[in-house]
């Protein structure tokens, strides 16, 4: 019997995915566990596997389309099966003879009605219904373009003046049901308000055109997480100036000793963060409503800018690794990030994030915390600045580090002590060995 392949929730925060690419085509034999499509999720592009052996009868989700978790992306079965009840259109191609399709149409109803367990997404079962579901009207748009909703959900949405499109459905094939609309109404969302007419007349011919840019799943997740962070985490920022001569000397010494070593100041900062975090419990703590989770590790998230987004792969057990190893690992994860091959696991579990905009000449900035972490370090450019030493103004290498903190977890004085310790370590890199 034909079965739907539904989109798997590939991370705890994933509610929908974009079908990036099909790895198989209709008519192909596929087997349980075989990767059949690439799906863009929270932050990564991941492979979706088939749960069944059989022939791919129909691709339901086209490349580039968005699918809710548990939504049908394809139908698998045996050639000739009637898949209309699963949202496919009628009988699959190789059923030629009328006597082959006729009993096939008659049979599914009682069989499916008797054994509903074998049909996870039952649609329009009753055998006696007067109108066959699939070819009802030529003008009916195919499943996938139409918003699937129960009659009750449609009525509630209409009465409440809420737009159905955009409400994530929890029913089979993403069908919107009563509770989905009620939740949307409760959240005040999706009002069907007519957009105000634009009366602005262009005064000059512009080389630019207005356009609507479709957002990737990653872009939407980033937006959601940033908003969540800014809305729910009480941020405060502390800045400290760090003298950079020690770091520059250390990098130079490493290169003298190992000319091929690709080590930069960034790698030394990561190493310092791991080393200093060992001594500061508050930095490793995370808010969990009625308690704190204190993490017994020194995993550091590193913000990596990629085309159209920002990812935060995590380097593990930083305090225990050498700078060369950290440098190599960072290159590896940055490569995976650009290839969109990071898994949700690659991006979770950090204690603190490093965001470095020094290479752009930015001299100070405040970053948004990456929940559930409790702090983020915004590292600005290493600049030549006049500094006062022993009462005299001298030229010095200085960079400003701004720490954004979750005040529920970290108090100002605690953060200040941490920054003092970090500054001392960065200015005297030998301290990292402690």
């Amino acid at each position, binding site marked *: 019997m034909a079965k739907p392949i539904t989109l798997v929730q590939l991370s705890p925060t994933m509610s929908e995915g974009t079908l990036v690419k099909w790895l198989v085509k209709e008519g192909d034999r596929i087997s349980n566990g075989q990767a059949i499509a690439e799906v863009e999720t929270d932050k990564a592009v991941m492979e979706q596997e088939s749960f069944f052996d059989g022939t791919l009868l129909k691709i339901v989700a086209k490349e580039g389309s968005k699918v809710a978790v548990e939504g049908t992306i394809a139908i698998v079965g045996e050639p000739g099966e009637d898949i209309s009840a699963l949202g496919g259109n009628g009988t699959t191609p190789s059923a030629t003879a009328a006597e082959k399709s006729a009993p096939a149409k008659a049979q599914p109803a*009682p069989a499916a*009605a*008797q054994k509903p367990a074998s049909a996870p997404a039952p649609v329009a079962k009753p*055998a006696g219904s007067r109108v066959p579901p699939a070819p009802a009207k030529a003008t009916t748009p195919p499943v996938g373009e139409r918003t699937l909703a129960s*009659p*009750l*959900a449609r009525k509630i949405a209409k009465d409440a003046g809420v737009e159905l499109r955009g409400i994530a459905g929890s*029913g089979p094939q993403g069908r919107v*049901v009563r509770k989905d609309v009620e939740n949307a109404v409760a959240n005040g969302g999706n009002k069907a308000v007519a957009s105000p007419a634009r009366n602005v007349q262009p005064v000059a011919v512009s080389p630019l055109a207005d356009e609507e840019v479709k957002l990737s799943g990653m872009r939407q997740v980033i937006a959601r997480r940033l908003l969540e962070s800014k809305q729910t985490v009480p941020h405060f920022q502390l800045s400290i100036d760090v003298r950079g001569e020690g770091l520059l000397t250390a990098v130079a010494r490493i290169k003298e000793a190992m000319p091929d070593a690709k080590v930069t100041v960034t790698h030394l900062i990561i190493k310092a963060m791991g080393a200093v975090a060992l001594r500061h419990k508050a930095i490793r703590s995370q808010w969990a409503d009625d308690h704190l989770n204190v993490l017994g590790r020194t995993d550091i998230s590193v913000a990596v800018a990629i085309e159209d987004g920002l990812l935060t792969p995590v380097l593990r057990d930083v305090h225990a690794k050498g700078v060369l190893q950290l440098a190599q690992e960072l290159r590896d994860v940055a490569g995976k990030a650009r290839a969109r091959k990071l898994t949700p696991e690659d991006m979770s579990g950090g204690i603190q994030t490093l965001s470095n905009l020094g290479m752009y000449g930015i001299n100070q900035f405040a970053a948004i915390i990456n929940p559930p972490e409790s702090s983020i370090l915004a590292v600005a450019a290493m600049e030549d600045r006049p500094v006062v030493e022993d009462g005299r103004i001298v030229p010095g290498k200085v960079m400003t580090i701004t720490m954004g903190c979750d005040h529920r977890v970290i108090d100002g004085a605690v953060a200040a002590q941490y920054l003092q310790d970090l500054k001392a370590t960065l200015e005297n890199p030998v301290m990292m060995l402690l």
Partner: protein
Amino acid sequence: MAVITFREALNQALFEEMERDDQVFLMGEEVGQYHGAYKVSQGLLDRFGEKRVIDAPITENSFVGLGIGAAHVGMRPIIELMTFNFGILALDQIINNAAKLRYMSGGQFSVPMVIRGPNGAGGALAAQHSQALESQYVHIPGLKVVMPSTPGDAKGLLKAAIRDPDPVIFMESEKLYNYKEEVPEDADYVLPIGKADIKHTGSDVTIVTYGRMWTHAVKPAIERLEGEEGISVEVIDPRTLRPLDLQTILESVKKTNRMVLVEESWPQASVGAWICEQVYAQGFDYLDAPIERLSHLDVPMPYAKNLEEEVIPSAENVVEAVKAVCYR
């Protein structure tokens, strides 16, 4: 209230109505000397004599026609079919005469008769003797069709059927004859024809069922659904399939927004199909999920007991269907 079998409840109804009205008589194969193939007419011959308890030859079309003629002239015949499988032979009399005479005579004649007997599977009786034929009768304007699910309903509805001015097809179940339940002892316990009964009250899903499926499949599923699955179930038993009390079904669906129909018959053009269609048409805006319908598998009833069980909806099927309409 006394706890009696479905068979005894029917017997009581026959006794009471024959005592009450001397125009009531019973005719059918083996109803007298043998006390009925299923002993529903136990003791009636001794009490009422052979003018009112008449053993008929094996000629269904003829003795049903004889009953229609008697009803014409004001008597109240009860025609027992040994099973409704044999009633197929009498369909001409039932459909062309019993169902039509009031209409075609412009109301000059009526046919106040009851045609009763077992319907549905009896347990390894094979394809010809295991048929559930209610849709044949429900299809015909001019007939009333009653299908009780409990001894109490059987008694109250048979008494109502005997008193009804029109032909009533009264469908029992061989499998229910020994089923016991409390039955009111009131001599005038008459239930209205055309009124559904709420067998169980709940809020999450409406199960519509009738006849044997209530005790065979639905009742045993309720404990699992409400206990293990946490799904609150409302059960509506129409009791009369024609005229149908759609109002009670719709009120329940408006409350629960989800419906499962369980019937002991084949799926195509069945009574359940009609009920589902009516709910779709009149309750469209109240449905939060497509209706699930459990019917027989679409095959002749197998003789083998294990295969027969596969064909008839089970409690397990009901649990799965209810979970499916609740998207669980």
